[in-house]
């Protein structure tokens, strides 16, 4: 009897550990703490600060007009999301922010669950573009985008499953023409898709 109990416990302990680890992995939160960027607001000439939690997201979705094709695309993209958080600062002069401002965000993105999809550092343009993704159970649980340019800093944090292809296709909608970049690097206004 005692032998059976010991054997059962030996089998049960690893099983419990696996369950706990799986639960911990599943509950990994893709929400980033980006409130430290708020101190850049006084220096910025233009600020975009969007903070939409799950409840507000549902309200916003409720106010999308299903008959409007652009709104329908947005609805398609945001279905299932739990939150959208964006902070974007435009400055009149370069170097108004320091790498230290991004340090805490970068450290969060080095945590478990997050993996960097793309990282571009341009010495000539003095810009850094990074796209991170959190995978939960083989599915996208959230994304983070950091775009640090000399006069602009943008941090995006989207929580929940999202189709990046559909998200990228949204640019050019909402009455704003899509910007096309020619091979020589000059920008040209393109036609809306």
């Amino acid at each position, binding site marked *: 009897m005692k032998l059976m109990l010991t054997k059962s416990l030996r089998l049960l302990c690893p099983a419990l550990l696996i369950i706990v680890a799986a639960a911990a992995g599943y509950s990994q939160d893709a929400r980033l703490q980006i409130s430290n960027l708020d101190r850049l607001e006084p220096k910025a000439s233009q600020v975009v600060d969007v903070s939409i939690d799950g409840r507000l*997201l549902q309200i*916003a979705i409720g*106010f999308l007009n*299903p008959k409007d094709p652009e709104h329908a695309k947005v609805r398609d993209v945001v279905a299932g999301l739990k939150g959208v958080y*964006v902070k974007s600062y435009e400055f009149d002069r370069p170097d108004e922010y320091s790498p230290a401002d991004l340090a805490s965000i970068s450290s969060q993105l080095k945590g478990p669950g997050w993996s960097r999809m793309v990282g571009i550092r*341009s010495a*000539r343009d003095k810009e850094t573009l990074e796209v991170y993704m959190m995978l939960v159970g083989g599915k996208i649980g959230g994304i983070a*985008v950091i775009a640090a340019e000399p006069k602009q800093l943008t941090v995006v944090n989207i929580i929940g499953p999202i189709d990046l292809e559909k998200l990228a296709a949204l*640019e050019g909608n909402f009455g704003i023409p899509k910007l096309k970049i020619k091979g020589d690097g000059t920008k040209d206004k393109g036609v809306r898709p």
Partner: protein
Amino acid sequence: MRDDYLWDKSGQPDPEIERLEQLLGNLRYRRPAQDLPLPERSPVQTRRSTFTTFLAAAAAVLLMITAAGFWLTLRSNQKETARALAAVVEPGSLPGALNAASISVITVRTTREPNRPEHNIIATGASSPEKPRRATVIKHREPSVALLAKAAPQALRERISEDEGVAAREQLIKALHLTSAKLNQVQRKVLDNKGAGPVS
């Protein structure tokens, strides 16, 4: 002389007292005292008493059941009201093609008195100039006017706010546009890395 004999017949007896005792002793009451039995309860009385106790207990239980039923009904009504009000602002959950833009007045009626409107809820959904507003009727099983009056403004305040909804929508669109632009910027940089430095 001590008075112990007069008190409890102890001590030295007084001859005069003894004489008086003998004289008056002839007049003492000699018959035994009558019994005073307690009134006995008849079987009918006993049954009646038991029945009364049982009736009181049954009444108490019935009262408790009625009170519990009333309380549960109130709770149920409250939940139904909340659900109905929640449905008002969730266009997907409304029957048919109703959406938040088309709801202006919701009249709640009882099934008991179908012709008598109990409460009007003014819902200011997203107004759309091209769509005329219309009234929607939501029927409740047993709505309580007091509960509706209490729950409706709270739910509406919480869930129906045109300004909040429109602002949230605009914020969402702005955020998605910005994100989309940044993702496309990354894509362009990856594809056209002539001017970019080392791609990590």
